[in-house]
Structure formats: structure tokens, C-alpha cells
């Protein structure tokens, strides 16, 4: 049994700490309360097939195991699938999307989400996909770890270091770059959906993930930039415009929060486990933290 210091309490850090503790290793987690954790702004979609539209095979291949892993560890996983829609004039986008993805069927969107009424004549349904609430899930992982005796603190690490600090490791990992993502949360009680919805658009694709208490998470932009400043007006206009296109009743929604996160990414947008100067680094989750962190954590403990 070794003693491990996991640095970072985002999705990667907590998955690694959980996996290590399940292997009966001694673990502590070092937190940095002032650091903005990108995971807290995640959509929480467990949608490997949809991501497969542009993501490498590893995402599709290992993403499905994430749904099982999260179901076994947290309570907010909803296995209700993903519904993909396009505005009437962009239906060609649906055909493109269908040709680049697998495990979907053509559906009448109204049959799955009655609140959509007859707004969309066709949609793509990915029944095996799921979503979760990232903030609740990280809280639950944390509580479980604390129950098991894992200590969270902000002092110096005492064990072997596993650095899971996302974009904060940029200086140490020269290939790591930031991909800016902007998101928002709004509340609406006029419309309810039970699954995540993706709206395809040639320039501003977006997704809408239902959360509890009438809240929805709307995301997310992808900008090749290290700028972590607050959401841009353009992003806000585009994303709210997309939400309005999904359902005009969202015009009366109330904005709860906006956010900007920096996705840690390697040039191939695939995460990596590296060893450098006596430390392990698990990083490069890009936009697939919740989808790939369990798999990466598992690969890490397998290596030991």
C-alpha cells in the first residue's frame, strides 16, 4: 500500500482519488479553493455517440463504461438518452450528424419530449446515452471519500503526487493548451425536458441539459483561447438564441448564472497519463472530463 497525494479536486482528481481508495491505497486530496474548476461548468452529458461526431474513437469506445461507473457512484445519473434537433432550415445538419455517428434512431421529437409539441418534425435519438449533474456528482464523490477517511486539505502533499490540476498544469506540461468554453444556467418552469437536447447549427451548435428545480444548463462555446474572463455578449446571444429556437417559452426564463471555463487539451484532444520529475500527471480531458475521467483513473491504477 502506498500513500498518494492527488492534487486537484475537479472531476479527474476525484475520480483518481476514488479509484485509488477502492484499491485500498492511502489517499489525500490537495485542493486549491481559489482555482476555478472547469468541471463545475461542465454539461455533465454522458454522450459518447454524439461526441463521436468529431471526437476520436477512444471517446466512443470508453465513454459507455463511464455511464456505468457514474451510475454506481453517484445518484444524479439519468439514462434517458440524448435528443438531437435542428431548426427546419438546417435539417441537412441532422443528416450530416447521423452519417458521422452511431447508435441512433430517427424519431418524432414530440414523442419523447411532449413539450416540444410539433416544433420539430424529426430528430435523432441516442437511447443509450445519459446525463448527470456535475456539481452534485462531485459533491457526492467527495462525501464518499471523506467517509472513507480520505483527507482534503490545502497544505503540502505528503505522498506520491498525482497532478490532476487541469489547465493549471499548463506551465509544466508544454503541450497543454486551453480551449475556452462559455456556458449559462437558466431557470424555466414553462417547459420541462427529461433528457439532454442538442441543437445543431452550422455555426453555433449548443446543448441544453435539464437540471433539478426547473434549471437548465446551456453550453458551450469552443474558442481556441486562454482567456478565462466572463462570458462574451456574442456567446450569450448565440446560446440564448439557440435556446429560444428549441422553445420560445425560454424567452421568459430567468438567468441564474453564466460561466467561463478553460478546458485543458492536448493537440489531439485526447487525455494522457504522463510521468515527469517524480510526479504523475493525468490531464487533457478537453471537453470529455465526465466521460473519460473514470476510464483514465482506471488506466492509472492499472499501471501501478
Amino acid at each position: 500500500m502506498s500513500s498518494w497525494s492527488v492534487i486537484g479536486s475537479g472531476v479527474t482528481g476525484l475520480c483518481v482519488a476514488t479509484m485509488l481508495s477502492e484499491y485500498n491505497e492511502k489517499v489525500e486530496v490537495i485542493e486549491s479553493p481559489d482555482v476555478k474548476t472547469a468541471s463545475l461548468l461542465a454539461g455533465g452529458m454522458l454522450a459518447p455517440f454524439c461526441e463521436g461526431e468529431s471526437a476520436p474513437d477512444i471517446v466512443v469506445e470508453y465513454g459507455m463504461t463511464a455511464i456505468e461507473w457514474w451510475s454506481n457512484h453517484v445518484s444524479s445519473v439519468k439514462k434517458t438518452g440524448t435528443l438531437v434537433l435542428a431548426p427546419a432550415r438546417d435539417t441537412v445538419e441532422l443528416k450530416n450528424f447521423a452519417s458521422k455517428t452511431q447508435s441512433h434512431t430517427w424519431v418524432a421529437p414530440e414523442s419523447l419530449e411532449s413539450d416540444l409539441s410539433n416544433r420539430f418534425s424529426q430528430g435523432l435519438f441516442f437511447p443509450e446515452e445519459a446525463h448527470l449533474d456535475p456539481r452534485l456528482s462531485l459533491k457526492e464523490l467527495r462525501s464518499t471519500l471523506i467517509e472513507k477517511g480520505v483527507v482534503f486539505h490545502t497544505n503540502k502533499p505528503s505522498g506520491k503526487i498525482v497532478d490532476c490540476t487541469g489547465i493549471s498544469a499548463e506551465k509544466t506540461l508544454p503541450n497543454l493548451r486551453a480551449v475556452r468554453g462559455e456556458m449559462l444556467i437558466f431557470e424555466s418552469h414553462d417547459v420541462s425536458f427529461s433528457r439532454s437536447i442538442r441543437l445543431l447549427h452550422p455555426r453555433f451548435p449548443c446543448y441544453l441539459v435539464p437540471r433539478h428545480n426547473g434549471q437548465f444548463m446551456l453550453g458551450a462555446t469552443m474558442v481556441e483561447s486562454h482567456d478565462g474572463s466572463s462570458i462574451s455578449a456574442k456567446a450569450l446571444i448565440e446560446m440564448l438564441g439557440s435556446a429560444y429556437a428549441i422553445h420560445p417559452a425560454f424567452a421568459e426564463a430567468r438567468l441564474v448564472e453564466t460561466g467561463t471555463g478553460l478546458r485543458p487539451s492536448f493537440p489531439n484532444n485526447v487525455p494522457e497519463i504522463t510521468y515527469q520529475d517524480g510526479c504523475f500527471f493525468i490531464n487533457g480531458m478537453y471537453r470529455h472530463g465526465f466521460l473519460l475521467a473514470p476510464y483514465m483513473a482506471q488506466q492509472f491504477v492499472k499501471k501501478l
Partner: protein
Amino acid sequence: MMFYDHKINSRLLLGTAGYPSPEILSDAIIESQTEIITVSLRREGKAGASFRTLLNQVNKKFLPNTAGCHTVKEAVTTAQMARELFNTDWIKLEVIGNADTLQPDPFALVEAARILTQDGFKVFPYTTEDLIVGEKLLEAGCEVLMPWGAPIGSGQGLRNIEALRTMRAYFKNVPLIVDAGIGSPSQAAHAMEIGFDGILLNTAVAKAKDPILMAAAFRDAIVAGHHAYRAGIMEKRDMAYASTPIYGLADFN
């Protein structure tokens, strides 16, 4: 072929937006054998340094663009920032007239082109097939014209072929590049067959299932189209015309 004072061998100019990953983008650039890549910075700004560093590694000539600019002032400021960040006086000038159709605003385009060429820029204007706008751009100091094939990202190909032919005939000695709207290699080949000097495209490669293979397809199509133009394409005939002689055939009666 010369664009301004720069000799080029490849007639394909490739955009760098919307690829699945920077790695696939780099591989596609290499496969395409392009020598010029376009890069946007309106949205990324100075903070997009990591992506630019990755692009630097492919060692191609940068043609920064003013994508996303709707006014003369925005376009000029973006061009100046591009000159500083990319250390080049080349600029692909886009001044968008409508956020949905992404049509160029020809009036603002000409004005911005004049300001930028006076400031020492070598301007590659994204324009329509309109001849008079083309003339005004040349007057403003542009030495290359880039008419659209079809609206940006639409993949419709050459929507107004006759007008593009007219443009080719009218601007005999001006390098003309079809910029935007090209969806398939056959469309790119067609533009080259009617005498265009180059093709600038992005989405058709970036959003292909296999961008690297698609980059190869466009590379070959553009070369083929250009060879065909130089070789002289036969005129269409109304009737069949035997390519073998009909005299002296054996008479089996």
C-alpha cells in the same frame, strides 16, 4: 503563380477552423500540400497563443483573416492586430454584411481595403462576383480578388458559374481565388477548369468524416482542374463524333 510578391506552387489555400483537433488539422495541412493557411483571430484574440504556436509548427505562410468583422473599423483593427501577432502584412479581408448569410458588405470592403493598402497591407478581399466591386478593390490597391463560389460554409459550389466566367475574362491578369462555398473536390476542379488561380476552403475539409483524406482529395482535384485548364478543354458538341476514322473500314457484305 504569384500572390503579391510571393511565389506559390500549391493553388489550395486552407482554413484552420473547426477541425476535430489541432493534431488532425496539422495532418490535414501537411496532406493538402498547401503553402498558405488562413487563421481567424477576431474571437480568439491575443489569448489564442497556444493554438497559433501549434499552427506555427506546420511552417506555412499565414494569411490571417478578419472573419467575424462587420464594420470597417473592426476589420482594420483586427488586421492591425493580425499583423502584430503573425508578423505578416497579408490579410484576408472579410467585412460581413449580414450575420446570417455572411455576404460581404462591398461598400465597407472597398473602404477597408483602401485604408489597409495605404497602411502597407497586402489585401486579399473576400468579395462577390460583381465586376465593378472588383474594379474598385483593384483601384483601392488590392492585387488579388477572392470572389465567393457560394455563401460561406454552404458547400453549394459555384452558384453563379457564368458570372464567375465573366469575371475571369474581365480580370485577365489578376489572380482570382474562389473563396467560400466549395463543398466537394469536383466543384473545386470545376473552378480551376474555368481558369481560376486558386481555391480557398475550410469547412469541406474540416467537417469531413476524414479531414486528412479529404485534404488529399482537394489537393488532387485542384491540380487536375488546373492542368485541364492549361491543357485546353474541348468544347461540347451536340452530336456524337467518332474518334476513329470511318474511311477504309472493312466491308463484310
